[in-house]
C-alpha cells in the first residue's frame, strides 16, 4: 500500500512539473504582461521602464526567470552559482536546509503586479469563502446524487425514475450562470426573499474576511452563521443542480450494473430482504467507481465556482480569478492556475488511493 502511494506520488511529479511549465509559458505569452505594462504611459520614460524590468528580473533569459520563479535558482547569484542556496545546499531544497525563501518551491508565489500584495496571501484570503461554498455544495450534491441515483435504479422505469432522468438531462444541459441568473430573478428580484449577492449582509456586518468582520463574528456568531447560510442558498442550489445531474446518472448506471451482478442474485437466493440486498450488497459495490469519479469532478466544481462566484459576487477564488484576468495581474493568475491544477492532481491521487482502500480486491 505504501509502495503504491509512493509510486502514485512519483507519477504525479512530472505532471506537476508540466503544469508549472504550461503556467509559466501561458503567462509569458500573455499580452498585457509587465513588459507592456507601461508601454502606453507617456509619463514613464524608457529608462524608468528598463529599470522596472531589471528590478523585476524580467531581462534575464526565460529559463532563468522560470528557475527563479520556481525557486530552483537563487536570484541573488548568477550563473551556475545560482543553483546553490545561501547555506550552501541546493537552492530548491526546503527553506530550513537551503536557507532560500524565493519561488514556488518555497511557498512564495511572488507579488501581485497590480497591487503589490503577496500572491499567496491574496489567494489564501479568497480561499476560505470558496472552501465554504464548495464544501457545502459538495456535501449537498453527493447526498442528493446518491439518493436520486439509487432510487432511480431500484425503481427503474417508474415515474420517479423518469422524473429523475428528465431532471438529470435538463440539469446537465443547463449553463451554471443562466440558472444562477434565473434564480436571482425569481428569488431576489421577483419574490425578494433571498439575498443574491455577496457573502454577508453588508448593511449590518463588515465585509467577510476583514479584521472588523471577525470582531463582529465574535460578538454575533449565530447571526453571522445564519447570515452566511442565507447567502449560501442560491449559489449552492446553482452548483448542485448543474453538477448533480451527471452524478445521479452515473450512480444509477453503476447501481443498475451491480444489481445485475451474480452476487446480488446470490444475496437474494440467501433469502435476504430487498433493502439488505440493495443497500448492503449492491450499493457498497456501486459506490466504488463513484469514489474515483468524485476525484475527477473536483475541477468542475472549481470552474463552476468561478462563474457562480462571479454571478453571486461571492468573494472567493472565482471572483479573484476574474478580477485578476481583467486587471492583467498575471502573477495572481499564475498562482491560481498552479494551485488549482495541483489540487486536481492531488485530488486524483487521493481518489485513487481511496479507491484502493474501499475495494478489498485492489492490492498494490
Amino acid at each position: 500500500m505504501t509502495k503504491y502511494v509512493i509510486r502514485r506520488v512519483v507519477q504525479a511529479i512530472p505532471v506537476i512539473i508540466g503544469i508549472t511549465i504550461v503556467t509559466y509559458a501561458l503567462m509569458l505569452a500573455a499580452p498585457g504582461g509587465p513588459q507592456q505594462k507601461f508601454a502606453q504611459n507617456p509619463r514613464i520614460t524608457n529608462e524608468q521602464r528598463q529599470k522596472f524590468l531589471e528590478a523585476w528580473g524580467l531581462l534575464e533569459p526565460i529559463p532563468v526567470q522560470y528557475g527563479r520563479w520556481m525557486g530552483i535558482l537563487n536570484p541573488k547569484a548568477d550563473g551556475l552559482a545560482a543553483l546553490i542556496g545561501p547555506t550552501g545546499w541546493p537552492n530548491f531544497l526546503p527553506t530550513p536546509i537551503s536557507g532560500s525563501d524565493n519561488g514556488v518551491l518555497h511557498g512564495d508565489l511572488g507579488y501581485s503586479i497590480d497591487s503589490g500584495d503577496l500572491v499567496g496571501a491574496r489567494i489564501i484570503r479568497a480561499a476560505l469563502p470558496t472552501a465554504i461554498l464548495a464544501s457545502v455544495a459538495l456535501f449537498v450534491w453527493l447526498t442528493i446524487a446518491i439518493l436520486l441515483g439509487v432510487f432511480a435504479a431500484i425503481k427503474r422505469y417508474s415515474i420517479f425514475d423518469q422524473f429523475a432522468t428528465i431532471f438529470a438531462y435538463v440539469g446537465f444541459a443547463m449553463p451554471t450562470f443562466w440558472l444562477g441568473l434565473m434564480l436571482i430573478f425569481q428569488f431576489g428580484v421577483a419574490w425578494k426573499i433571498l439575498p443574491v449577492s455577496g457573502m454577508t449582509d453588508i448593511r449590518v456586518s463588515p465585509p467577510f474576511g476583514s479584521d472588523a468582520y471577525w470582531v463582529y463574528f465574535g460578538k454575533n456568531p449565530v447571526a453571522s452563521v445564519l447570515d452566511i447560510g442565507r447567502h449560501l442558498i442560491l449559489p449552492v442550489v446553482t452548483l448542485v443542480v448543474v453538477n448533480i445531474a451527471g452524478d445521479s446518472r452515473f450512480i444509477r448506471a453503476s447501481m443498475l450494473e451491480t444489481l445485475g451482478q451474480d452476487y446480488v442474485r446470490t444475496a437474494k437466493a440467501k433469502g435476504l430482504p430487498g433493502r439488505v440486498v440493495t443497500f448492503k450488497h449492491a450499493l457498497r459495490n456501486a459506490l466504488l467507481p463513484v469514489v474515483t469519479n468524485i476525484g475527477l469532478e473536483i475541477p468542475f466544481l472549481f470552474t463552476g465556482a468561478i462563474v457562480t462566484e462571479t454571478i453571486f459576487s461571492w468573494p472567493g477564488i472565482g471572483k479573484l480569478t476574474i478580477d485578476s484576468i481583467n486587471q492583467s495581474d498575471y502573477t495572481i493568475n499564475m498562482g491560481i492556475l498552479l494551485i488549482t491544477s495541483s489540487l486536481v492532481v492531488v485530488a486524483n491521487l487521493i481518489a485513487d488511493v481511496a479507491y484502493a482502500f474501499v475495494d478489498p480486491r485492489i492490492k498494490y
Partner: protein
Amino acid sequence: MAHEPDREGSTMSPSQPNSTPAPAEAEDYEINLQSLGQMELVWRKFRQHHLALIGVGILFVIFAAAIFGPIFLPYAVDNIPRPDKIAYAGNPPSLKHPMGETGGLQWDVLTLVVNGARTSLLIGFSSMIIGVTIGTVVGAISGFVGGFVDNLLMRIVDVMLSLPLLFVILVIARFFKDNRDNVWQIIIIFGLFSWMGVSRLVRSLFLSIREREFVEAAKAVGVSDRRIIFRHILPNAISPIVVAASLIVAGNIIGEAFVSFLGFGVNPYTPTWGNILSNARTFLLVGNWWWPAFPGLAIVLTVLAVNFIGDGLRDAFDPRSRA
C-alpha cells in the same frame, strides 16, 4: 441470455443427416437469420430511441431557425430600432415580439436568439471537429506507435486534463478579446482544448482492437500499417468517437456561452447566446426576465438535443443493448 438469436448470421449450410432424404421445406427450420449489417442494426436501434428522435427534431428546428431565421425576420441585430417610446425595462413577450424586447436598445429578443444561434452552433460544431480530429490523430499515433511517443503524448494529456480548462481558456481568450471579429479564434481555442478525452479513447481502442483477431489476421497476411489503421481499426473506433463528439459539442456550446458571458469570448458586437446573456445581466434587476430567459432556453434545448442524440447513438452502437 442464451435465448438470443445469433445476430452475426450463420453461414452454416443446411446439413441433413444421411439416413433420411432432405426434403426442401426442411430448410425453413434451419437457422437462416439474415446477417443484418452493422449500420442497419444501429439505425434500427437508434430509431427506437425516442429521446434521440426528439433530439434530432429539436436540433433540426434550431438549425433551421439559425439558417433561415435571420433571413426572414423583420428585424436585424445591427439595425437598432428607434422606438417611439423608450422603455428602459424593455417590453415583455407580445404577438409582435414573441420573446419580448430587450431593455435599453430595445432589440427584438427572437432576432437576437436566432442570430446568436448561428454563431453558437458554428462554434460548438466547428470546435468539435477540430478537437475530434486532433484527438483521433494523437490517440491513433499514441496507440499505434506506443513506447516513448505514447508516454510523452499521454503525459501531455494528463497535464492538460489537470488544468482547469475554462480558466485557461479565459486567460487565452483574453488575448483575442479586442479583435473585432474573433469567432474563429474562439473556435480554435475551444478546439485546442477539447481533444484530450477523444485521444485517450482512441488510444485505448487502438490498444484493444490491435489485439483482436481480425487485426492480427490482417497483419499476418501482410497488410500495411496504414491500411490496418484506416480499413480495420478506425471503422471500429467510429462509434465511441461519435458519442464523445456529441459531448464535446454540448460542452463547447456551454463553454463558449460561459466565456462570452464573462466578457472574454466572442466580441460583444457579435451576438452569441453567451453575449446576449452577458448584456442582459444588468437588466435582470429591473425585472427584464425575458431577455436572459430565451437565449438560455435555447442553450438548454440545444445541449439537451445533442445529449439525447449522443445517448441514442451510444445505445445504438452498444452491441449489448437491445433497444
